[in-house]
């Protein structure tokens, strides 16, 4: 990650393969939550409510598992940005950093690739998401300012 070295945390997992594994496990569980909720809806529509129920229950477990990974990862920092997380103020700062990177770097880069590869609808989807992430960043910044004002910082 591109977080400046001075902002990163020193932690027991620093440099260990387990740290990378925890991040990977978190990403996988977070992805599973979303995928299974998507699959559950299709099962519902196809008329297999039993399958839908299984997918939903597994999605719920995956969400719990993802949070379990975060329980460990928060010692080492946000898996997305490597910034410290845990308390709300830190979480807001990490979230702002991640959203900022998404709208300013990640989605624009992906959009350019889609354009080069001749996929205009995907290009437009990525443009749309980038704009949404900008709005998210602004909302989070507002939330941080309000949070700090309330806590007289």
């Amino acid at each position, binding site marked *: 990650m591109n977080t400046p070295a001075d902002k990163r945390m020193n932690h027991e997992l620093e440099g260990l393969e387990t740290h990378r594994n925890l991040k990977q496990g978190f990403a996988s569980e977070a992805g599973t939550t979303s995928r299974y909720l998507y699959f559950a809806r299709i099962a519902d529509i*196809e008329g297999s*409510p039993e399958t839908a129920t299984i997918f939903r229950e597994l999605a719920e477990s995956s969400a719990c598992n993802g949070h379990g990974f975060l329980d460990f990862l928060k010692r080492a920092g946000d898996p997305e940005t490597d910034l410290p997380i845990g308390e709300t103020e830190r979480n807001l700062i990490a979230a702002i950093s991640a959203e900022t990177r998404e709208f300013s770097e990640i989605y624009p880069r992906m959009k350019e690739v889609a354009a080069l590869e*001749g996929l*205009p*609808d995907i290009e437009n989807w990525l443009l749309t998401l980038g704009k*949404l992430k900008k*709005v998210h960043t602004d909302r989070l910044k507002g939330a941080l300012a309000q949070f700090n004002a309330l806590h007289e910082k």
Partner: protein
Amino acid sequence: MPSMKNKPGMKSSESPAPTIYDASSITVLSGLDAVRKNPGMYIGSTAIEGLHQMVYELVDNAIDEAQAGECTGIAVSLNPDGSCTVADNGRGIPTETHPSEGCPACEVVLTRLHAGGKFKAGSYRLTTGLYGIGLSCLNALSQTLVLEIWRNGRAYRQNYSCGVAMNELEDLGTTERRGTRITFTPDFTIFDPRVAFDYQRLCKRLEELAFLHPGVRIEINDQRCGESASFLYDSGIPGFLKKLNAGARTIHREPLRIIHNEKDLQFEAVLQWTDSYGENISSYVNSINTIHGGTHVAGLKTALTGAINAYAREMKMLNRNRDERITTFDMLEGLTAVISVWMTGPSFEGQTKTRVTNEGLGVRVEQVVHDRLLAILHQDSKLAVLLVNRALDATRARVAARRASDRVAYQAADFTVSKEVYQKQFGIRSKNWHESATWIAHEELLGEHVKHLALDEKARMLDVCCGSGVVGASFKNKVGQMIGLDITPEMIDLARTRLDQVNQGTVYDLPFLDASFALVVNREVLHLLPNPERPVSEIYRVLKPGGQFIVGQILPFGPEDAAWMYRIFKKKQPLIFNMFQEDDFRALLLGAGFVDIEMSEYNLWESIDLWIDTHETTNLHRHEIRDLFYNAPQEARNVHPFEITPSGEIRDLWRWCIFSARKPGK
């Protein structure tokens, strides 16, 4: 009204000894208090749904009496003073002294809370009432209630207020009449005072009930505005299906009908396929409209796919080389079905109790429908071939559509779009596109385009991708010559009835000389085109210096609803390429060289039912679109108004943005 032994609130002769009577009486009183304190728990809500639930409760009780063969007529009246009257010609609620309660049985029914009694095992049969809220809840939530009973040759009357009897049951003497009439005024300190009884909503439900209960006449009279209706159907469920399919082109004449009779489970399903693309399954359990389906509907769907595949395989109608299989989606395309189940002990889910969840129900419905349908198919091979081919057409069309969308993505890289693909996108509309949505010929919306016109009456106008030509035609008598351009012969024929001249061609390569028009108009097309810069540049090229471009697009309200709308529109039309936001669209126009950009906004409510049923989308996508509305992210809801009616209809507010731009120079 139902007989005494069946009604919640009635106790059998083995009821508790008098010593418990006092204690239980206290419980009962606090029970009704609880109803007034927390009405949502008993009737779902204190908004419009709950208010109507009060009426349904009375009607359902009368229906129970009709089911017992004792009632043939039910009349609902909405009175000018805001009260509602429901009358039936049944036996009348029992007025005899209740053995253990020591007051008339009818008073027990109206004042003692015994929730859920209707569903108690062993109660006589398959009752209608959903919540089993009982008359006592209705009474508790009514500011005033007048009870009139004609029973065993005598007339009775009693008044209540907020669930408490104001006088003893009065005996008014002899009568020929029989039945029960209850007039209640909802307590608007509990119900939302902004809501009132809705005639249309009640009509819809009462008509359903009349279909589900052949031979019972149900009348409604709205004395507030003089509207009235009377429903009496002997045709039952098949008649209901016929009504649903009125005006549709059916694939086969006679609906398929499956009837099953067992002691604890009876159901009737009628099925008919039409040439439309949507699926329309109405389902009922004990006459409750399960608008979100449940195990009975799931069982029906599974059985259809299973039976049709079994038949098609047996008859070797599937291409085995390609491992062809008819999917549920394809089987359901164009299906109109009504299934009405009567069962003991239904269990419902959800706040609105509109989904049934009994597990065994699905399996039994599936088995019965599967076997009966297979038998029907074997009996009537002509029908079977029709149905299999109908489903196979859907399967093959879906595969072809997917391939077409792969191809267009590939070709977009070198700025060309094949005519075949373009035609797939626009030509496919020829069948019903013009009638498919109200916005197409919406006069105010068209007027919003014309308002931007800043040219003299000699101007030569081009309506590009004109479709049926309505946008261009709205400029009639305001411009000199109206010329249209479209790629599909069907649309060109339609547009020729509206415009002076219509050419065939593509907007990527306009078949016109440079600077040959003073005005170009266009609506809701550019988002469908990959690389829209190219067509916009072409429009710029054919405009004279100083010429005007007027273009309407549906845009998101902001970045907050754009990604959500992108998903909806992409499912509606898989070949969509852009979900323009306002700044994107301005940038598109500026990028082509346009100046003096102005924009006006026009918001239009539209039921999504008007556009959801087209060739371009699939059955899965239609379901997913509805889900996207039902589960819209709060962030999108904050900026994008839409509403979901209790029947599940979705009405969306479309933000039309009409831009005017000029080519520089004179």
